[in-house]
């Protein structure tokens, strides 16, 4: 049911009954390595191309998520997936393997939250009993797609982020154990004219703030409704800009702004990391990291992430333990005379009950 301008409230509160995250070697060295179901030391996964390797990542994530839900792939009614490669081929080929009715989606960074929103919509409306959502990304395949082939070794400034190698999947069902998806806010594309492909955080931050604010406006709640509003995709710089903008726009007191926290999955001595799969892990984070976060209470300091990111923005709330997960998206839309122009938007905040 629509509430406000752009927020869907799911009355039946669909459940994320299982989730899985598969990562590559870089993620294996990251801060959140223990939250992955499977980590690979080789980005090829024994395949002939990076694209095929990405497909493998996604297949494994889907298989793991289905298995953890105690289901068989024949039990899955719909599969929604998106990625960053042309014609979303990793998703399409995974759909071939799964042989489940498939809805392909594209939302760049927001694909995972877009999928989660649609899956919840399907389940909530009664058009499906369950749905599998997934998303994937592969550093070498994606960098070649929208920046430079990694072999070229183009210089990257310190603001540049790192596209994740990995995949995530989750099963959304009508009933079961797990976080509930309560609401989803669909964000607008906000283009404030940033055209630097090596500073995605700054380009995405205004959209992030716009969506988070829209969520609070539509649901008539304040940031203090949540224990934590986590951002990952924005990176260190984008996160700072988002906090600043958020403060300037909303004039919320500092203690509320402080709920905006930053997570990173990857660790490296220099430079920022971001991933556009940001939300891949989110599925798992929702369950693993945030559980431990909730245990430690809000004092736990996740914001130490100096490099950047990877999750969507997720928030477990206090009293009712609501998790919130706005997701950011960014997308290089067109190439004008070799200069990438980037448009970014931010989509879908998802409330989840733990």
């Amino acid at each position: 049911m629509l509430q406000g301008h752009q927020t869907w409230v799911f009355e039946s509160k669909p459940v994320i009954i299982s989730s899985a995250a598969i990562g590559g070697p870089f993620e294996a060295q990251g801060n959140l390595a223990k939250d992955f179901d499977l980590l690979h030391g080789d980005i090829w996964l024994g395949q002939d191309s990076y694209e095929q390797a990405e497909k493998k990542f996604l297949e494994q994530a889907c298989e793991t998520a289905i298995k953890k839900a105690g289901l068989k792939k024949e039990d899955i009614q719909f599969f929604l997936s998106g990625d960053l490669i042309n014609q979303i081929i990793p998703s399409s080929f995974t759909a071939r393997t799964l042989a489940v009715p498939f809805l392909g989606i594209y939302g760049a960074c927001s694909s995972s939250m877009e999928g989660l929103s649609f899956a919840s919509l399907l389940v909530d409306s009664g058009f499906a009993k369950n749905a599998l959502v997934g998303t994937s990304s592969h550093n070498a395949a994606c960098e070649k797609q929208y920046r430079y082939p990694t072999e070229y070794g183009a210089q990257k400034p310190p603001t540049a982020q790192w596209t994740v190698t990995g995949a995530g999947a989750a099963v959304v069902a009508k009933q079961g154990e797990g976080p509930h998806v309560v609401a989803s806010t669909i964000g607008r594309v906000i283009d404030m004219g940033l055209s630097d492909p090596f500073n995605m955080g700054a380009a995405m931050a205004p959209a992030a703030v716009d969506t988070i604010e829209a969520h609070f406006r539509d649901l008539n709640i304040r940031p203090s409704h949540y224990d934590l509003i986590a951002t990952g995709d924005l990176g260190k710089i984008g996160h700072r800009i988002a906090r600043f903008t958020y403060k300037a726009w909303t004039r919320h007191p500092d203690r509320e702004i402080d709920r905006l926290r930053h997570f990173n999955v990857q660790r490296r001595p220099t430079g920022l990391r971001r991933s556009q799969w940001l939300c891949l892990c989110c599925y798992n984070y929702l369950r693993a990291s945030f559980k431990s976060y909730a245990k430690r209470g809000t004092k736990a300091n996740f914001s130490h992430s100096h490099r950047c990111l990877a999750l969507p923005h997720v928030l477990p709330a206090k009293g009712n333990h609501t998790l919130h997960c706005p997701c950011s998206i960014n997308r290089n839309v067109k190439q004008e005379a070799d200069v990438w122009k980037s448009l970014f938007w931010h989509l879908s905040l998802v409330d989840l009950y733990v």
Partner: protein
Amino acid sequence: MEKFILAFIVGGSICVIGQLLMDGLKLTPAHTMVTLVVSGAVLGGFGVYDDLVKFAGAGASVPISSFGNQLVKGALQEAQRTGIIGVLTGIFKITSAGISSAIIFGFLSALLCKPKG
């Protein structure tokens, strides 16, 4: 010793120009490279680049701008020998060693190695 210092200063300055093009003017790596090649070609056409090579040695002959200079030099030399068609036949004459070795060694390493991402 003086030669090394000169080469370092001149070669380093060309690299600084490239870095400034990327960071200051926000040129892409491809644009930066082409800008340097074209600048080298223009300087070569006026005969300035060879003086720079004489002055700084490897400091001027190793950076990519030297490639532009060599393209123009090869074209002009061949044009003097065989006329206007020489511009077309001579353009890769001097640079052919560099281009061919890039192709051959690229091919060989592609046969033997796999990129690691």
